[in-house]
């Protein structure tokens, strides 16, 4: 088991954003996490990504109980996040964004400087692996939504991530680019990476995910293989028309 949540709750003051959630994610799975606004999806992601610790319960990664307080600690355990707003710097090149915070450096003695050629080369390889048209030297400002996703995803590939959390990767892009992004997700899976996909878009989840988890008002109300579910059922679960499944 790669990731396990045991009775995890998170409260913000009087508001209980996540309550008593149990969740297991196996290696190489693509799990869809669905729910209405305020259902607790983003809080779950932030708990796993180490933005804040749970109020109660345990997060277990590779059979080891972890206590993250900062995202850097989660990254150290092989957890990478692709944020909804993508967290890219528009004024920097694709390669600079991929390597932001972990730049490749050359050195002579104590003097260290950025190794631009190495970063361009490696970023180019990553984009090629993802079969993306993104060019390493292009500024992110000039990119399409799909290319931006490729940059954000390429960043997760730098560190041999085990688990990639994707927060609404298809929310703000055109229909054509959605297909591009779903392809990127499949390629992550092909290279043995586990993906948790948060999405509002039913078709995306049913296209790439193997399992769907539905949250409602901070609770997990469903957790079943995608083959045994249907968009109608999930919609019912999200809205509360169907109580649990």
């Amino acid at each position: 088991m790669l990731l396990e949540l045991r009775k995890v709750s998170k409260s913000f003051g009087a508001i209980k954003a996540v309550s008593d959630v149990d969740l297991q994610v196996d290696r190489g799975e693509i799990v869809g996490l669905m729910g209405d606004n305020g259902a607790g999806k983003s809080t779950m992601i932030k708990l796993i990504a180490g933005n804040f610790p749970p109020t109660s319960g345990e997060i277990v990664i590779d059979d080891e109980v972890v206590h993250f307080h900062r995202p850097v600690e989660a990254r150290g355990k092989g957890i990478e996040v692709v944020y909804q707003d993508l967290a890219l710097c528009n004024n920097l090149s694709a390669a600079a964004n991929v390597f932001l915070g972990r730049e490749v450096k050359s050195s002579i003695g104590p003097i260290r400087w950025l190794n631009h050629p190495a970063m361009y080369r490696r970023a180019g390889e990553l984009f090629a692996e993802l079969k993306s048209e993104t060019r390493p030297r292009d500024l992110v400002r000039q990119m399409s939504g799909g290319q931006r996703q490729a940059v954000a995803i390429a960043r997760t590939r730098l560190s041999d991530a085990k688990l990639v959390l994707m927060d609404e990767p298809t929310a703000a892009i055109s229909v054509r680019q959605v297909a591009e992004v779903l392809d990127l997700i499949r390629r992550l899976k092909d290279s043995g990476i586990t993906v948790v996909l948060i999405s509002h878009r039913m078709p995306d989840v049913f296209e790439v995910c193997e399992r769907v988890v539905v949250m409602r008002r901070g609770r997990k109300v469903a957790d079943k293989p995608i083959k045994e579910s249907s968009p109608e059922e999930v919609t019912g679960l999200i809205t509360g028309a169907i109580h649990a499944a």
Partner: protein
Amino acid sequence: MTDTAERPVRTNPGSDQAHVAFESVLDVQEKSAYQRFIANQSFWVTVALVAICLAMSWIEPRFATEDNFYNITRNFAFIGIMALGMTPVIITGGIDLSVGSVMGLTAIVSGSILLTETPAWLAGWWPEAAWAHSWWMAVLAGLAAGAIVGFINGMLIAYVGLPPFVVTLGMLAAARAVGVILSGNRMLYDFVPAADGFKIIGGGWNLGLDLPFRLSNPFIILILLTLALALALRMATWGRHIYAVGGNEQAANLTGVPVKRVKVQAYVLCSLSAALAAILSVGWSGSANNSLGATYELLAIASVVIGGANLMGGEGTAFGAFVGAALIFVIRNSLLMAGVDSNWQGIFVGAFIVLAVLLERIRGRRRE
């Protein structure tokens, strides 16, 4: 379901190809290095600079003389050095209005160390030993004063989260006031003999070397610092992080860039550059006045903006700050030589700032 999903994927490469072809026509990044160079604002500022210099040397025989070159380059070196320090701050999306006051404060602190008659506030605790009143101690004390001001600015902005405009506006008033208090509101000029070493730094030339030409020390220091900053911004992780903070502070934070530390460093560096400009200026003029550098903050910011930096953050270069400052001073010098009343200079400098931002806006729109 998979069938319908497959179709858009398959049509994808074709339409992407069209997309790429379209982009390579318009895309600035795909252009040659030469074309990218031309799209740069600092390039056009350089062109303007060269054009004005050529025109002036043709019209006005006094312009293209060695003396005038020496004077212009020295005069703009002070602002140029401040503009270099201002550049990282503006790239991070901040602003530092206190640099002019830092000059005044630094001048008084360095001057007080060198005074023949140690001022009362210093005499209470400062040793009378020769080293305590040496030129290098004056330099160190001046730089320390600048670093402290920058550190306070940076901490209030990065860690307390106050807006840079407000913090540095407050510091503009406070640092100037401290300078006035420490100087007893008098000009300091009665220096110990050891001050000659201090004066030569700002007033001398060629760094004391025997060269076939004559360049003022401040100008040589400006050139060295421009190269150093250009290298730091381009080749150091620090520079990369400065740009990242200005591009998307939240993203920089999420990817593990030490945003707060980087910001503090930028403000310390900015104040240090102002302190250095003050030290050179005091050395050149031979006296320290608490009004040194008043309104220089505007010239420094103007230089950076004219050189192509974006006040919203994310863009700016060392070379831009250099040519921006050069352009302002060449224009000032030209106006003086043309017999224009010096009181009119502000109008031209102001117009240039607005023009530079307007140019940036137009280029930005084309880019979208």
